[in-house]
């Protein structure tokens, strides 16, 4: 059993007991524990079940690389799935739930998958689910849905807050072990600004465990020295998540996850610009691939050591150590030193270990050289191991009873951060690992390397070598800023003489299929040796293909334990050396970063800016039912007590068409184009001839992209000879202004034109309806009869004491004026109009009434009738396209064969025979089917509304040869599979003669 020892545990404080719950059961640990160490101390070795086969799994590692011990942590708004128990610090009241089992961790129905493993081989998703088709819905999809994804998504809104933090430094050191501390010390010695990030709560990395008290003392000295330097910033619980272009680095700091009483932001995302980056990220121990290497109790040798030295926890009473290198002997010695039994060290090497081997034998530990584990006995817990020769197929030579296995397949440098931004790797045959190639480092804006590595991350392991190499790396990084100091490497504890590692990718070397099918590579995704071999056999030879086919390394741990072992198996199966097989791509983040940290403060009101019209507060106080339009909020309609949306819209339209309505048009884009060449420029921007427009007059204009497609429309007013006011759509103002600037700056930069986006400078109010003229007269406008103030012109008037520019333009077909006043005067005018219009029962109308009224008149709406593939000619807008101009943006493209072909879908009106409203986006059906077996179509609905004015549904659409098919009936599809017939009609449904706007 795993238990807490009476003594030991440098990270725990035995005077501070902590109470937490695991699957609802109350357990105890100590301050300083991780969830993993506390569970082990309570003899909870089995911590979860695997993803595919639901096999019982225990904790295998002690750090970020842990693939098995994943938990849902917290409750309600603070619940988060898939948290690694090895990284979760224990605190009072911590609530942890195990995952991926039903109905319970101990008894799980999904475990039957393990017995079906023969039918769930590599690539089973691709093989199984295609056929027979009918099985998809009833068998395969429910199966996949039930097994897809670990953990449960949180249901409640995140109760925590998060923040972003911007930081700049000369040298950023990622990792606070011996190498990181030495590198930071050296880098800071000449005055460079140095920042050091450490993902664990404590500095020191492996040194205090592997180098004993000497290592711990050295860490303390170094930490104190750099901690006292003013130019050094140290953050613990802060992971270097990713290295990006030009020295950009993301740090992920966990501020409150370890606290019982939480206040302030939970996580902080550090957005760092560093001149030089040193990754001192250490190395990760590799598992060995033998049958049953996933049985709870089989752990990495270093992890067993960590739990023992760091937390005073033993994983078992009898631990068999299995290894191909000297390092695992440290675990055996540490366990024996703590009085625990190590029945044997099983060393695959014939030569065994160096000095540590002699030490072990002197301590009375039996060492079996040239041996391996044939298989592990036990299901929910190790009960013993069957030994064999490492060469051969695994004939049993001996059986040893034990309740834990410490395995070590060697160490892989953590090269992730080095690789994120393009750093390349080289295969180190002597140490059997990929290590950074310093000659192919990531380069920055100036073309020079900006990332270097220190310590185990660089493939350097002996303490003395680590300290001198890291010191050099620190000095070199600071030299890039001319801030290199002078500092000698600290003295290191003496290192024992070692024998070289011998790569062991499969144990025993010629294991038969039965053993290989139980030898796990990727614990979380349940990928076995046989799966990778099958992938190679089936032709997935590229490491990237094999990864996706088998899902090796695709789980939340991103293959930190499995990648090298997996590609070594692939290399064997392909008979290609490991360096030629290569690695998959290392992508940020190093371990998962919370979505909250990425969002930071950008949530709810601060997610993006909200633009408010000058009348916004009035709308809010008068029943506005808001609709987002770009970054604006516009009233969709104004609800009165007891009204639904439909009733309110109907009321607004009826009132406006019958007497008088008001529209807040302030959000419409208003761009001023000014200068001696303004007319010439306007002729290029618009399809119309704008240079001939007379001052004081207005013209409806169309704007196309250089591809010929209609991108915006609006009324242009010529304020004077040199000045145009261009109205754009609400959502288009910024885009159109940018479009104008682009052409001015990059194509016609010698033209004398100035543009200003004056959208927010003006409040603009639409006064619409038969009484529009009367209300203006009442407010003081003089001489505004139809002849004196004709349609498509503008005049300046003083209205209710406010200087106003009045445009007589109409988007509803009614007599209509749009009145522009300085934004600050908008509310005063709006209120004056309400007061003056009271005798006609004036009321505001929202965007839906606006849309319905424009559709009743057959006016197009950008974004409804256009979608980026529609040219003005499709909308029968030839009249707005000048034939006299040599050029305008989009003119040449509109001459392309595809634009002039006769069978383009064209704008028409549509009426259903029963007056019903056509579904939005419905297609006009044609005979036959296309090559994909889909029904052929001949058009689509672009706008569809219920018209209160006409008492029926009206619609516009684009239909093949539409304008030539007036009166013809076409079938449109509905979501339920049925169809609805509609007659092709003129798109102008209301007041075709234009009698209203006089």
């Amino acid at each position, binding site marked *: 059993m795993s238990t807490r020892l009476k003594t030991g545990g440098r990270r725990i404080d035995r005077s501070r007991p902590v109470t937490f719950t695991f699957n609802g059961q109350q357990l105890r640990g100590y301050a300083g524990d991780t969830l993993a160490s506390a569970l082990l101390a309570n003899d909870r070795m089995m911590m979860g079940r695997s993803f595919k086969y639901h096999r019982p799994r225990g904790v295998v590692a002690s750090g970020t690389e842990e693939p098995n011990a994943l938990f849902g942590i917290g409750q309600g708004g603070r619940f988060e799935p898939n948290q690694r128990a090895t990284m979760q610090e224990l605190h009072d009241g911590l609530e942890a739930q195990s995952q991926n089992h039903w109905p319970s961790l101990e008894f799980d129905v999904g475990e039957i998958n393990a017995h079906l493993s023969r039918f769930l081989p590599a690539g089973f998703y691709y093989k199984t689910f295609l056929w027979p088709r009918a099985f998809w819905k009833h068998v395969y999809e429910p199966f996949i849905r039930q097994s897809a994804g670990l953990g449960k998504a949180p249901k409640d809104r995140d109760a925590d807050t998060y923040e972003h933090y911007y930081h700049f430094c000369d040298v950023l050191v990622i990792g606070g072990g011996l190498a990181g501390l030495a590198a930071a010390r050296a880098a800071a010695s000449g005055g460079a600004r140095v920042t050091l990030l450490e993902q664990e709560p404590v500095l020191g990395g492996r040194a205090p465990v592997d180098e004993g008290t000497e290592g711990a003392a050295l860490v303390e000295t170094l930490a104190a020295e750099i901690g006292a330097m003013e130019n050094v910033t140290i953050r613990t619980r802060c992971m270097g998540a990713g290295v990006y272009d030009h020295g*950009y680095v993301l740090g992920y700091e966990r501020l409150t996850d370890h606290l019982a009483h939480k206040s302030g932001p939970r996580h902080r995302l550090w957005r760092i610009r560093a001149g030089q980056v040193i990754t001192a990220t250490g190395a990760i121990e590799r598992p060995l691939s033998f049958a049953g290497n996933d049985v709870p109790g089989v752990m990495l040798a270093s992890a067993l050591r960590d739990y023992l030295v760091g937390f005073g926890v033993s994983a078992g009473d009898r631990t068999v150590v299995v290894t191909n290198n000297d390092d695992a002997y440290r675990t055996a010695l540490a366990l024996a030193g703590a009085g625990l039994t190590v029945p044997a060290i099983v060393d695959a090497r014939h030569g065994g270990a160096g000095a540590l081997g002699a030490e072990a034998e002197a301590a009375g530990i039996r060492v079996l050289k040239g041996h391996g584990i044939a298989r592990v006995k036990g299901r929910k817990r190790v009960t013993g191991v069957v030994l064999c020769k490492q060469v051969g197929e695994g004939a049993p030579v001996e059986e040893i009873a034990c309740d834990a296995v410490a395995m070590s397949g060697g160490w892989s440098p953590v090269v992730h951060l080095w690789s994120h931004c393009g750093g390349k790797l080289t295969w180190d045959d002597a140490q059997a690992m990929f290590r950074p190639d310093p000659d192919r480092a990531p380069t920055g804006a100036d073309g020079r390397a900006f990332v270097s590595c220190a310590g185990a991350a660089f493939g350097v392991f002996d303490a003395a070598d680590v300290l001198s190499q890291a010191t050099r790396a620190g000095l070199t990084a600071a030299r890039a800023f001319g801030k290199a100091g002078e500092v000698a490497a600290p003295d290191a504890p003496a290192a024992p003489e070692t024998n070289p590692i011998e790569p062991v990718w499969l144990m025993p070397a010629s294991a038969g299929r039965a053993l290989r099918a139980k030898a796990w590579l990727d614990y979380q995704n349940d990928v076995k040796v046989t799966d990778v071999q099958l992938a190679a056999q089936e032709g997935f030879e590229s490491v990237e293909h094999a990864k996706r086919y088998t899902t090796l390394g695709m789980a939340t741990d991103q293959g930190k334990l499995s990648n090298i072992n997996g590609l070594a198996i692939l290399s064997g199966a392909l008979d290609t050396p490991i360096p030629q097989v290569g690695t998959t791509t290392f992508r940020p983040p190093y371990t998962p970063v919370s979505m909250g940290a990425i969002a930071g403060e950008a949530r709810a009101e601060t997610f993006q800016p909200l633009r408010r019209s000058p009348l916004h507060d009035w709308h809010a106080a008068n029943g506005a039912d808001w609709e987002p339009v770009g970054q604006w909020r516009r009233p969709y309609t104004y609800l009165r007590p007891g009204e639904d949306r439909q009733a309110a819209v109907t009321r607004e339209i009826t009132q406006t068409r019958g007497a008088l309505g008001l529209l807040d048009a302030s959000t419409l884009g208003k761009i001023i184009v000014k200068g001696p060449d303004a007319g010439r420029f306007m002729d290029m921007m618009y399809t119309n001839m704008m240079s001939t427009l007379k001052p004081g007059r207005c013209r409806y204009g169309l704007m196309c992209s250089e591809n010929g497609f209609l991108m915006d429309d609006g009324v242009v007013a010529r304020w004077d000879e040199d000045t145009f006011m261009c109205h754009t759509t609400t959502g288009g103002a910024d885009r159109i202004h940018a479009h104008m600037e682009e052409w001015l700056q990059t194509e016609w930069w010698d033209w004398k034109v100035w543009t200003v986006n004056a959208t927010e400078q003006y409040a603009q109010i639409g006064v619409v309806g038969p009484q529009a003229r009367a209300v203006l007269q009442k407010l003081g406008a003089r001489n505004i009869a139809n002849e004196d103030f004709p349609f498509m012109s503008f005049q300046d008037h003083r209205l209710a004491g406010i200087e106003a520019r009045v445009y007589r333009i109409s988007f509803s077909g009614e007599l209509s004026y749009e009145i522009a006043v300085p934004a600050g005067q908008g509310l005063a005018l709006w209120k004056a109009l309400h007061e003056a219009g009271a005798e006609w029962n004036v009321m505001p109308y929202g965007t839906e009434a606006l849309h319905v009224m424009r559709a009743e008149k057959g006016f197009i709406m950008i974004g409804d009738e256009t979608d980026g593939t529609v040219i003005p000619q499709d909308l029968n807008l030839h009249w707005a396209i000048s034939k006299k101009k040599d*050029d305008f943006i989009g003119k040449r493209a509109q001459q392309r064969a595809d634009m002039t072909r006769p069978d383009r879908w064209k704008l028409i009106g549509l009426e259903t025979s029963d007056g019903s409203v056509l579904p939005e986006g419905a297609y006009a059906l044609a005979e036959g089917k296309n090559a994909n077996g889909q029904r052929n179509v001949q058009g689509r609905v672009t706008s569809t509304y219920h018209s209160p004015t006409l008492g029926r549904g009206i619609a516009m659409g684009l239909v093949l040869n539409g304008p030539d098919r007036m009166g013809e009936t076409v079938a449109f599809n509905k979501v339920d599979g049925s169809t609805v017939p509609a007659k092709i009609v003129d798109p102008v449904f209301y007041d075709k003669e234009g009698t209203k706007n006089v």
Partner: protein
Amino acid sequence: MLILTCPCCGVTAEETEFHGGGEAHLKREGPGSDDAALEGYLFHRENPRGVHFERWRHVYGCGKWFHAARDTATLEVFGTYPAQSTRPPEDLLETIRAKRPGWRWRDLA
């Protein structure tokens, strides 16, 4: 995330302050151009692994467009220069020749 220097206002800033605008030095083909020229102008773009000339706009700064010469593989920035030019400045081309012997981009080398 790149760092670029706007040649108009002189500010060196993060990529989020800028907006990319695709390939630089396109020649506009208007009315009268043949179909092949128009197709090239509208649709054909260089996609080099190495030296590239791009348009950028300092959208959250001075608002001006400019050009940048950049290595798409190593992300090295050779220099930026005003949008009001039809060809990269000679001293910039010299810099690139020195750093990337034998490079080619359209008719530049």
